[in-house]
């Protein structure tokens, strides 16, 4: 059972976070390769990503992950060395391999089981790519390991189905190595004595020994001479030490890197090639296994605070890294001898527990509320605007806003990782339905609140699948329509009017409105004689239970989905709209708030209620004059705004606060912009203020309330509802004329 205080758990968690970054780099590299813009460095980046994941996985004993990464890495090394051509098919296998690698990482993280059949399928493809080379490697391994009594038993994979008598991890690094006899003479001798603190800090020599084993051939001798009797044994104290003879074509830095993370938690000496250790047995002899084979005096005393030997200066440089980083992963196979500053060094970052950020966000929220209260008190005190306190308060407000923006930026993340996940969805979905589809992404760097990104993943996945399954035509139909066989799904993100707009566009056939309507009628979702506009027909897709698929596919067609998608997006304070062009394709547009924590709002009064309207939804405000208001039908009014007429809606009536008024002359109208570009005017009694408000969610307590997005606490401590004016408009009754006025008109 994993203890929350288990230091190993923390380090593991950090490893998995790093894996996600490496997987992202891997996807980036593969995408560049797929786009035909790869150079040698691209291949190196891809290789290093896989290599680093393998290294870290080895440190944590994630054997399945190591095994797969190794095979993948071997193929990539073939690409690097030019023995394997990275053609379209190969890149497709690499993408799949990247997906599997991600699956294995997440399975290991979540203590889950990855889909073995898929893994084996891709493994087979990778092995096929290695072809004759793979065979050679295995044979070499057999030869190499036969003299090694201990190594012969190694079965790092634990895979009982595959050649159990052979090591499952033919070491990549020995593939291109010199003939083994030559290399062997240039091996390293490593004396490794863990301090007790190595264990208590959650490290494990087993993982280090495994990493060394992966670098080449090893002869391991353990010195047990310091062990006391069992009853005298201190369970947390280190008694064992090792002497390892390692034959590898890696340089000394790479060998040191294995111990990088524990350099100050052990006593370590590494004797490089050309300096044979006189104490070591001949390399081809069976390794000594008992304590008698190593003089007891060789084992240095256990000194918990003993500094690493001088030879480890380069390691000390690495040790300045945050403790949470995974040091045993050699990021670059061939690093310079001393850690010189790298030219393209990434900017330093620090990982922070999300909970801490959320606490900070909440505190800043309280600060905003507190600042509003002070503002209100100052206003009530009747102090002049040019008084020192008023000026000071202005600065305070500005600072509060800057702090708040900065805190929000901490939570913001580029949508890139989300988009990369969608790339996989497209690959899998298109292969399942036998279509050729490519995902293009735009605006990957657009930053959105982390929570929004997380909660957007599921709806986006479904929409992408729908685009592939329903949007893009079959290759035959596309060719017949004069389109390229390969369909394009474009996923883009950007900021617009203080919101994040995510668009999913396909270049397919567009919505077959006739069929959509017919199905809606068949399913009794709309009356048989319904007269619906194109937009209304498109929106039928979001109705619960609607499905146009004539057969249930693995992807979609289960009759659930788009309504769930819409609900999920609504729950995020977002909206989704459809634009479809027959023969050209369909665009789904998701509009989301930038953050779920604060918003700029207009504080308004209607029917003695104080409400907040998000500022970004208001395009303008106007005081209604008699000549602006025109009757439309028996119960509704429109107002003239320059050259157009806009429906007039009474917010008080729509929210159930009051009946329609006799006249709206002198009232204030907020012009609300909708996603489709149309406007509506919401009548309010008065505008109090524009200010930043802290969003307090209502969903958890009250569920979704129509027309209400959330609530906030105002400066005077009162609670005000934050409206979702677009929702109000969408569900508006529209009556703005009282019965009385109708009678007057009739009379």
């Amino acid at each position, binding site marked *: 059972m994993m203890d929350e205080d288990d230091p190993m758990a923390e380090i593991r968690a950090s490893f998995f976070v790093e894996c996600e970054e490496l997987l992202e780099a891997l996807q980036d590299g593969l995408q560049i390769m797929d786009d035909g813009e790869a150079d040698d460095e691209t291949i190196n980046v891809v290789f290093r990503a896989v290599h680093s994941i393998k290294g870290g996985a080895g440190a944590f004993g994630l054997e399945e992950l190591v095994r797969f990464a190794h095979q993948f890495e071997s193929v990539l090394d073939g690409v690097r060395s030019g023995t394997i051509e990275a053609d379209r098919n190969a890149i497709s296998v690499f993408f799949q391999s990247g997906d599997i690698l991600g699956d294995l990482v997440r399975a290991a993280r979540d203590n889950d089981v990855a889909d073995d059949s898929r893994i084996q399928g891709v493994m087979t493809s990778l092995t096929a790519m290695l072809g004759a080379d793979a065979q050679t490697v295995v044979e070499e391994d057999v030869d190499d390991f036969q003299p090694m009594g*201990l190594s012969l038993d190694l079965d790092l994979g634990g895979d009982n189905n595959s050649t159990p008598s052979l090591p499952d991890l033919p070491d990549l690094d020995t593939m291109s190595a010199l003939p083994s006899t030559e290399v062997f003479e240039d091996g390293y001798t490593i004396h490794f004595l863990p301090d007790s603190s190595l264990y208590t800090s959650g490290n494990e020599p087993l993982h280090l020994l*495994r990493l060394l084993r992966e670098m080449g051939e090893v002869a391991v001798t353990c010195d047990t001479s310091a062990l006391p009797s*069992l*009853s005298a*044994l201190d369970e947390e104290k280190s008694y064992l030490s090792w002497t390892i003879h390692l034959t590898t074509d890696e340089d000394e830095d790479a060998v040191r890197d294995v111990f990088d993370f524990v350099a100050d938690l052990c006593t370590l000496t590494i004797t490089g090639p050309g300096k044979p250790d006189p104490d070591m047995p001949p390399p081809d002899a069976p390794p000594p296994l008992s304590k008698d084979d190593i003089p007891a005096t060789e084992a240095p005393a256990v000194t918990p605070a003993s500094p690493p030997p001088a030879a480890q200066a380069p390691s000390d440089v690495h040790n300045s890294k945050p403790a949470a980083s995974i040091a045993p992963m050699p990021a670059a196979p061939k690093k310079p001898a001393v850690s010189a500053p790298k030219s393209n060094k990434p900017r330093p970052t620090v990982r922070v527990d999300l909970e801490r950020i959320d606490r900070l966000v909440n505190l800043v929220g309280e600060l905003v509320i507190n600042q509003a209260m002070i503002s209100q008190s100052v206003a009530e005190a009747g102090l002049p605007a040019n008084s020192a306190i008023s000026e000071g308060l202005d600065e305070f407000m500005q600072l509060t806003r800057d702090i708040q923006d900065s805190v929000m930026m901490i939570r913001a993340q580029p949508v890139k990782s989300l988009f990369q996940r969608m790339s996989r969805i497209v690959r899998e979905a298109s292969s399942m339905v036998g279509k050729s589809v490519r995902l293009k992404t735009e605006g990957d760097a657009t930053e959105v609140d982390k929570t929004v990104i997380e909660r957007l993943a599921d709806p986006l996945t479904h929409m992408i699948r729908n685009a592939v399954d329903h949007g893009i035509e079959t290759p035959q139909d596309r060719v017949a329509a004069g389109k390229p066989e390969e369909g394009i799904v474009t996923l883009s993100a950007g900021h617009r009017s203080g919101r994040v707009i995510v668009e999913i566009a396909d270049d397919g056939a567009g919505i077959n409105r006739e069929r959509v309507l017919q199905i809606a009628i068949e399913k009794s979702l709309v009356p048989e004689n319904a007269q619906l506009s194109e937009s209304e027909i498109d929106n039928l897709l979001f109705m619960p239970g609607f499905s146009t698929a004539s057969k249930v596919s693995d992807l979609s067609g289960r009759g659930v989905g788009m309504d769930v998608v819409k609900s999920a997006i609504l729950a995020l304070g977002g909206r989704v709209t459809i634009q479809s062009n027959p023969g050209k394709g369909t665009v789904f547009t998701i509009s989301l708030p930038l953050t779920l924590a604060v918003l700029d709002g207009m504080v308004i009064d209607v029917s003695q209620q104080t409400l907040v309207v998000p500022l970004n939804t208001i395009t303008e405000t106007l005081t209604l004059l008699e000549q602006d208001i025109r009757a439309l039908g028996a119960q509704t009014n429109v107002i003239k705004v320059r050259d157009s007429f806009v429906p007039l809606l009474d917010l008080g009536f729509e929210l159930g606060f009051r009946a329609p008024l006799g006249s709206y002359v002198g009232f204030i109208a907020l012009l609300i912009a909708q996603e489709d570009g149309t406007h509506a005017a919401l009548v309010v009694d008065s505008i109090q203020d524009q200010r930043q408000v802290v969003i307090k969610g209502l969903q958890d307590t009250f569920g979704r309330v129509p027309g209400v997005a959330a609530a906030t606490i105002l400066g005077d401590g009162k609670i005000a509802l934050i409206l979702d004016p677009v929702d109000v408009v969408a569900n508006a009754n529209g009556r703005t004329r009282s019965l009385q006025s109708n009678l007057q008109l009739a009379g």
Partner: protein
Amino acid sequence: MTAVLALQERLDFGAVTPLKSAILGYSGQDLEIDASQVTHMGTLCLQVLIAAANDWKQAGKTFHIISPSETCKTQLALHGFSPDTLTGASPT
């Protein structure tokens, strides 16, 4: 009579003390350590096993690892041991 102690799957940091106590509970008896379920042989637990093997040898009792899982064998090998060499010096 030979007692049998079945090792748990993960012999990690948290398993050291219980393992030591369990083995000490068989002091004076011939002991077989069933390692068939072992998926992680941590170094601290390995220390316990080696110390126990030494003690048992000195006491003239047998101490064997039986049915080691493949993973156990692999991880012992990484440490520089095999099930036999770990306890091989014990009298049979």
